[in-house]
């Protein structure tokens, strides 16, 4: 259905405004939803993605909170367990450190521990990623932590279209869903239909079809992968690019199907390579498509260091089309 609506619209919006629209649709649709987080009301978030919502919905729907991440997530947990559908904002994903108990031990587990008695229709938006010289504590991609937690769903929209549709899907879902946004994508333009639509959670997107190579790329890396695909095609590698969009649940089937066709695959993410979600994806691929693989599953991710501040270092730290192509060549013996 999302696709049907997409056709209706030629309108382009930046990622940041698509987020706004997604949240706005939720607030219009669900009376018991509200937004709470640090500087989300008056400032519309430090990225501006809630801009205008305070004016439109008033202070009874949009709440600035103290700088208390554990409290903020607790607010979301308690409110969602008692009849609200909160949208909770965690300014930087790096601040998962301050609220990981609330996320991992309460939000993710309450339903199970209570034998199914609790339902937590909670949506949490948070901002990930390097590239803005914000150094080690404001640039991380920590989705591996939360994907390892049964009870949570984790989505990572890469385009304006997906951002709006996944926020709506997350908010309609009766489970806690964490929406991982990317700070370097805020200005990215793309078509965004008016009105509400959903990008289904748990369904990967084959963004670019190809026949003899697959790249699975998450978050901002999708765009680098697409650039890399163009370059690889010039080398005779007809590359299919898949955006998982949803990391938890993960759409193994779509990826495996592609690999069975292409026989060679690379997984790319921005997070540290060691222990990143790419490890899980690679492990699953070799489990489910072992006999179809002509080469080991390659992985591209950040090297094993905290994110450096200096642009000179950060630019080589973050994976890019260039490093993707280089790794593909190595993998394929080109």
């Amino acid at each position, binding site marked *: 259905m999302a696709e049907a609506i997409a056709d209706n619209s030629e309108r382009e919006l930046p990622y940041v405004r698509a987020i706004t629209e997604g949240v706005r649709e939720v607030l219009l649709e669900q009376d*018991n939803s*509200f937004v709470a987080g640090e500087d989300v009301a008056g400032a519309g978030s430090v990225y501006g993605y809630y801009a205008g919502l305070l004016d439109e919905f008033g202070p*009874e729907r949009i*709440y600035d*909170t*103290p700088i*208390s*991440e*554990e*409290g903020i*997530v*607790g*607010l*979301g*947990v*308690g*409110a*969602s*367990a*008692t*009849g*609200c559908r909160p949208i909770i904002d965690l300014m930087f994903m790096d601040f998962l450190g301050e609220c990981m*108990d*609330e996320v991992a*031990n*309460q939000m993710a587990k*309450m*339903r*199970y*521990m*209570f*034998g*199914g*008695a*609790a*339902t*937590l*229709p909670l949506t949490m938006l948070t901002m990930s990623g390097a590239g803005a010289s914000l150094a080690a504590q404001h640039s991380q991609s920590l989705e591996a932590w939360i994907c390892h937690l*049964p*009870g949570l*769903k984790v989505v990572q929209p890469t385009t304006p279209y997906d951002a709006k549709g996944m926020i709506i899907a997350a908010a309609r879902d*009766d*489970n806690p869903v964490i929406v991982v946004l990317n700070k370097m994508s805020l200005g990215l333009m793309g078509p965004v239909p008016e009105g509400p639509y959903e990008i289904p959670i748990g369904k990967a997107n084959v963004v670019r079809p190809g026949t003899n190579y697959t790249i699975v790329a998450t978050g901002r890396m999708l765009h680098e992968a697409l650039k890399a695909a163009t370059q690889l095609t010039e080398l005779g590698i007809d590359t299919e690019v898949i955006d998982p969009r949803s990391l938890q649940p993960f759409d193994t089937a779509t990826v495996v199907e592609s690999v069975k066709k292409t026989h060679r695959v690379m997984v790319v993410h921005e997070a540290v390579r060691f222990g990143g979600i790419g490890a899980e994806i690679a492990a699953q691929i070799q489990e489910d498509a072992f006999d179809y693989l002509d080469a080991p599953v390659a992985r591209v991710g950040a090297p094993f260091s905290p994110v450096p501040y200096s642009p000179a270092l950060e630019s080589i730290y973050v994976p890019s089309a260039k490093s993707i192509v280089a790794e593909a060549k190595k993998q394929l013996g080109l």
Partner: protein
Amino acid sequence: MTADISNKTLIDMHRRMVRIRLFEEAAGKLMEDGKVPGALHLYVGQEAVASGVMVHLTNKDQVTSTHRGHGHLIAKGGQFDKMFAELYGKSTGYCKGKGGSMHICDLELGMLGANGIVGGGPPIAMGAGFSAKFRKTNDVAVTFFGDGASNEGAFHEAANMAALFKLPVVFVCENNGYGEYTAQSNHQAIVDVADRAPGYGMPGVIVDGMDAIAVYEAAGEAVARARAGQGPTLLECKTYRYYDHVGVRGMGLKYRSDEEVALWQERDCIDRIEAHLIEQGISTQRKLENVHKSTLKEVHEGIAFAEASPMPEPSALLEDVYA
């Protein structure tokens, strides 16, 4: 202080206290006998707190509890059969056997669960209070936590937010003088946890947690403030747990004197309310004994129910992870 408390309420509180005591004594014995697995944190000694607070609440008022949570659930109306079944890990338990003692809950009763995380409750209760205010119900949220828990950052953040947003929340600190085996004087440089209240902009009240009537009155005021939209209160109840931190005899450590235990037991909350009920002619020895007896019967029935119940099927393992 006995003003403004009806005989009915006194009898109700007494009944809740006896229910907690007898459930816990039985649960402790089951643990000692190896009949229930895991860790059991007994509430015995602190019954006046849960009971004195809970008589003010309806099933729509929300409560968050602690690792020491049976008393809170019972005072809020919890059923013995489902509770024992949960301790046994049976499919008929409150959490279908998935939660056990540390996650026992009854959402129908507004009991948002025991919590294995010290300090886990206050942020959730704050959220429940936020929810009540947002949805314009007239409900309140009460969070029980220990003296030890008052040193967790989670308490601090929740208290500040509740005061800022003037939420209908009551923070009930059950100060039993110890966090596990560490005396209060070794975990904080203050004597009264209530001293933290002014730092959040909320009133702090200290009450004798061994006196159900005193708790009843102080809690009544705090709950009324919350319902009236005047914001949270920090209510510190000075109390004591008779048994060890975990189970009956715990690790067998000597971290408090027999004299200290005896001194508190002399002020036992149930003895006290029973003496009051008889003195004031509100009840009789015989009637009180009947409460014990019928409760004990319910305990035995609960245990029998639990023992007769089936363990969860393997298929239950992956159920209830998602809605």
